[in-house]
């Protein structure tokens, strides 16, 4: 029982991070119906930026959010503005596949450049939170995981409020629902694409800063996070904040609970199988709305 409850707690703590990771993919996916294959690799850029700030300047890991959020946000904006918009315009109904391949290529570039700069060895940031943990009854919650999870949940709520209450958020959602009508209402769809992609990347930066206090970094961890983000988004349902949160929690809990009861490999295999089943049975996601065509 204790084992199960500990796994449950671990799952929830990880789920918060998965939610922001999923959001980092989901927003772009929702607006443009394109998949960024390199969400994980992008996050790894954030990890290294954050790591450098911590080790070189002794910055608090959670203060680095300011830098990773803005830096990756800017990168996302530029990528969308200069390249991805162009691909979407030119590819017609193959836009989804072409952007996926483009981002896959970009992911390769990111990984190999990071490898050339930082080498292949794994590094972990040492912060003042390292090694501290809080006992809740007979359960343990490592302090950095707890703080990260709380920040992740706050960020998810803020994004939800932004998307639903602010004028800009409404414009973004309008573009995602019907680009042409939105444009007729005076919304600059291309600008919304850029803002959406920037926001996606910024959230990946945030996720990186939340992971950095306790996660060992190598240039290669990106691809597994990319895949995880995709699974979260497909299971949660594209483009909605609640879906990404539910998907993130669901996957994290599945991983941790099955991992502690059976084995990590079994948990991974089950996550993939679950993903395939959801794709086949409910491609709009567990939380997504079924659209009749």
């Amino acid at each position, binding site marked *: 029982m204790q084992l199960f409850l500990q796994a449950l707690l671990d799952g929830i703590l990880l789920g918060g991070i998965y939610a922001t990771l999923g959001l980092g993919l989901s927003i772009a996916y929702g607006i443009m119906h394109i998949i960024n294959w390199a969400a994980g690799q992008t996050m790894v850029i954030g990890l290294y930026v954050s790591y450098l700030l911590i080790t070189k300047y002794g910055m608090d890991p959670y203060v680095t959010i300011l830098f990773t959020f803005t830096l990756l946000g800017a990168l996302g904006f530029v990528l969308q503005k200069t390249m991805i918009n162009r691909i979407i315009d030119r*590819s017609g109904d193959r836009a989804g596949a072409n952007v996926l*391949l483009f981002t896959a290529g970009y992911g390769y570039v990111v990984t190999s*450049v990071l490898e050339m700069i930082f080498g292949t060895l794994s590094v972990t940031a040492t912060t003042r939170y390292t090694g501290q943990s809080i006992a809740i009854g007979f359960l343990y919650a490592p302090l950095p995981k707890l703080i990260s999870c709380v920040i992740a949940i706050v960020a998810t709520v803020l994004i939800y409020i932004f998307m639903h209450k602010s004028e800009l958020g409404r414009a973004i959602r309008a573009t995602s629902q019907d680009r042409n009508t939105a444009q007729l209402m005076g919304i600059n769809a291309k600008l919304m694409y850029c803002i959406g992609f920037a926001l996606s990347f910024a959230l990946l930066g945030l996720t990186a800063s939340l992971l950095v206090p306790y996660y060992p970094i190598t240039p290669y961890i990106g691809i597994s996070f990319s895949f995880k983000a995709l699974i979260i988004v497909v299971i949660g349902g594209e483009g909605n904040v609640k879906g990404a949160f539910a998907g993130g929690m669901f996957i994290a809990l599945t991983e941790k609970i099955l991992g502690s009861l059976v084995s990590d*490999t079994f948990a991974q295999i089950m996550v*993939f199988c679950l993903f*395939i089943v959801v794709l086949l049975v409910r491609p709009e996601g567990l939380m997504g709305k079924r659209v009749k065509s």
Partner: protein
Amino acid sequence: MNSKKRFIPIAVLLAVGLLVPQVLKTEFYLQSAIYVLLYMYWASSWNILGGYTGLFALGNGLYIGIGAYVAAVLFVHFGVSPWIGMIIAGLVAGLISMLIGYPVFKLKGIYYALASIALMSVFELIFNNETSIFGIYTGGPNGLRFTMTGNALDMQFSGKEGYYFLVLALLIIVLLCSDRIQHSKMGYYFRGIRANQDAAASLGVNVLRYKLTAHFISAFFTAIGGAVYVTTFLYVNAKTVFGMELSFAMMLFCVLGGANTLWGPVIGALIMVPIQQGLRIAAGSNMAAMSSLIYGVALCLVMLFIPDGILGTLKDLTVRRRKRATDPLQVADGAANGGGGADD
């Protein structure tokens, strides 16, 4: 083109291919040439599913892996020569691809890609973590080593030439087969599905049946390549054969050269593999990073500037030039429609 002229380029390729080992004497160059041919072969196999039929099969490495393991297990545990093993491997992969193709056939575009890559990852996880599958030892993370016999009957040659000619023969076969498909009714059905699956279905094309056929052919050839690939190394390992790298490589070469054309995959591999092999000498220790950097940059550039690939774009240009000569109005019209896909 009339039917006999069509085969001239293939004959030329065969002739050049036969001459190459006379020029490239060192082991390294011959090994590089084997890679070039093998990737041409794999990219052409991918083209049948990803190009002609237009299914975005990102996880086709699955069949490399299945082919590799079937041939390895048959040889190591049952003493079946890889010459027979590779055919069995092809058939097994073909059957599995149909079993997979049946449930996923309704998925389109990226959803199909995601399903196919997820399946490949499941296989990778299983083969990399379980040391035996169905009670047969496959080595898990240690991989499976072939027994050395040095016997040509076991597909083990003393020099590299043997493997070279074997892969060359496979390439010629897959090209002849692709050419046959292109000019058959089935090929037109494949392209119909690529252009618009629903429209093809409404015109009476049995979409499920032709998708399964495309799966079978593509998986069959891909798996034979996988079987030969591991036999040259006398070693099979799940991380490599089920890995993303090989899947992405064959897709990239095909897309770069021009998917949905006979020669696109050949040209793509002919450009990329020597660059990659060249960097292998030049970059030394940074080799792994350099070669994936080149893949990445190539993929980005192709998607930005020539999403139809080299041959696709060239064909598009010639069509436009011809149209401009006859009717200037049609050019604007064609440009507005976005060019569509390449067609042979």
